[in-house]
């Protein structure tokens, strides 16, 4: 690089550019936080849904599954499992409840978490609420 472009100029681009784009990012963040209630239906976050998120986190479900495409890639996407299971929380609860303790021989297995009925219902409600988030039509089909 020639001397026309000096180190001081490079430094100023770094500080100025970073600051500018960070502020722009803050602005976009502000708008996102303000407006995303239209997509996340936060009015439907009941105590049960909140408890469901806690059950989800306390059992590290994200360590095998993706949720809205983020997480681990070992087991099915769960953001739309409510719809895949025929819009049924009961089916979700039944699936989780019936996992065999010792797994299924030769098949990727999901642990038996011994959740209480209240916890089961809550995590199913949480997955139902999640399936209603407006995700720009993702995933492309019901298989997740």
């Amino acid at each position, binding site marked *: *690089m020639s001397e026309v472009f*000096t*180190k001081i100029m*490079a430094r100023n*681009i*770094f500080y100025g*550019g*970073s600051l500018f*784009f*960070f502020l*722009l*990012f803050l602005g*976009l963040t502000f708008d*996102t*936080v303000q407006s*995303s209630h239209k*997509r*996340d239906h*936060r009015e439907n*976050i009941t105590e049960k849904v*909140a408890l469901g998120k*806690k059950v*989800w*986190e*306390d*059992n*590290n*479900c*994200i*360590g*095998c599954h*993706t*949720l*809205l*495409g*983020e997480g*681990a*890639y*070992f087991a*099915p*996407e769960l953001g739309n499992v409510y719809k895949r299971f025929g819009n049924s929380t009961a089916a979700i609860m039944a699936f989780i409840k019936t996992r065999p303790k*010792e*797994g*299924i*021989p*030769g*098949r*990727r*297995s999901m*642990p038996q*978490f011994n959740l209480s009925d209240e916890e089961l219902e809550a995590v199913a409600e949480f997955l139902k609420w999640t399936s209603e*988030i407006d*995700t*720009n039509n*993702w*995933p*492309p*089909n019901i*298989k*997740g």
Partner: protein
Amino acid sequence: MPYKSQAVAKYYFVAAIALFVGQILFGLVMGLQYVMGDFLFPEIPFNVARMVHTNLLIVWLLFGFMGASYYLVPEEAETELYSPMLALGLFWIFLIAGALTILGYLLVPYATLAEITMNDLLPTMGREFLEQPTITKIGIVIVALGFLFNIGMTVLKGKKTVVSLVLLMGLTGLAVFFLFSFYNPTNLVLDKYFWWWVVHLWVEGVWELILGAILAFVLIKVTGVDREIIEKWLYIIIAMTLITGIIGTGHHYYWIGTPDYWSWWGSIFSALEPIPFFLMVVYAFTMVYKRRREHPNKAATLWALGTAVMAFLGAGVWGFLHTLAPVNYYTHGTQLTAAHGHMAFYGAYVMIVLTMISYAMPIIRGRAAANSERSQLWEMWSFWLMTVSMVFITLFLTAAGVLQTWLQRYTDAPLDFMTTQSKIEIFYWLREGAGAVFLIGLIVYIASFFVGSKDEERTVS
């Protein structure tokens, strides 16, 4: 070694390498579970192995960054470290806290761990990469603050070079953005939105400053090129990093319930994110080409050039592959993401830490500048074994990802997840094979510290 206190870096480097071994072993466990679903079930379920694998990765990279800083900053500032005692104390605190956390993952069910660490008081657990108990997270913050204080005071009392300033900015950013791991709203959309402020703004933001600073330091040392030139490049690279990378966060906001406009902001800016990685390749090769001295540590130069190339491939090329919203619509959360994650983490952050270790360790261990010919030969073999096997891991996962996208997302009669997985099993076997070669490379790497350590030092003839 110009300053005695730089020696404290050795503890950090040794711990980093030891944890690296653990990371790879658990990677291999998961690789097997991918094809033999009941392997170690229910003793070590997949999610547990995954937490251990990814958390060990992050922790050992942090050890590496800290060790690199303790070596680099005194030399740049031309003064002893502010407090070697503090550095040593924090080392043991971090190591013990880290070990206890990993043991917690392995020994008790995760829900029990959440309970006994009182996660309900301030729930932060159960999110990808941020699985650590809240108390561990608080420990990380305390260690980071003590570390920043130590490094900051050293810079303050000594010479303030661009390299140490950029490093300090990167490390401060690392600590600041980690604070978002304490924010966990019940609204999943906002939770995910700010989760990326830790994950994306780390690896595609402030960590790149750390990467740039360490690379600049090693290039100055091994090439002898004028510092002014290297510093100008460094500023340009990190300017491009933050100009593209901050808004580039939007490439994670397409499908999580955030507004539409992120498809545009995210696609456009993240498509420019490869630029700084490309510049890094041009710069590293130009500096080595224009070198004003022959440094006897050929291995360190190899690692430095390798970092630039592999970071560009893993982050730049593999990142670009799936970053545009219309592509990401189909590939989001598939094996393609895993392919990219592996090569990017390895190319950028594993390799820069190994570059620094390669440059600094011989000097800390009492050599004038470099290891013996034989030791370097082993080290360079390990470079090729690990790097080439990582390329293959990436290629196999890419093949798996493309097929998965096709079978499960794109055809008219899409298959369900589990059926798709069984159809692409062959690539998981191949990945596991490449992973085994990676482990061999790592063993050769460790051996290089012992082989030829009594031989005469390599000199430039």
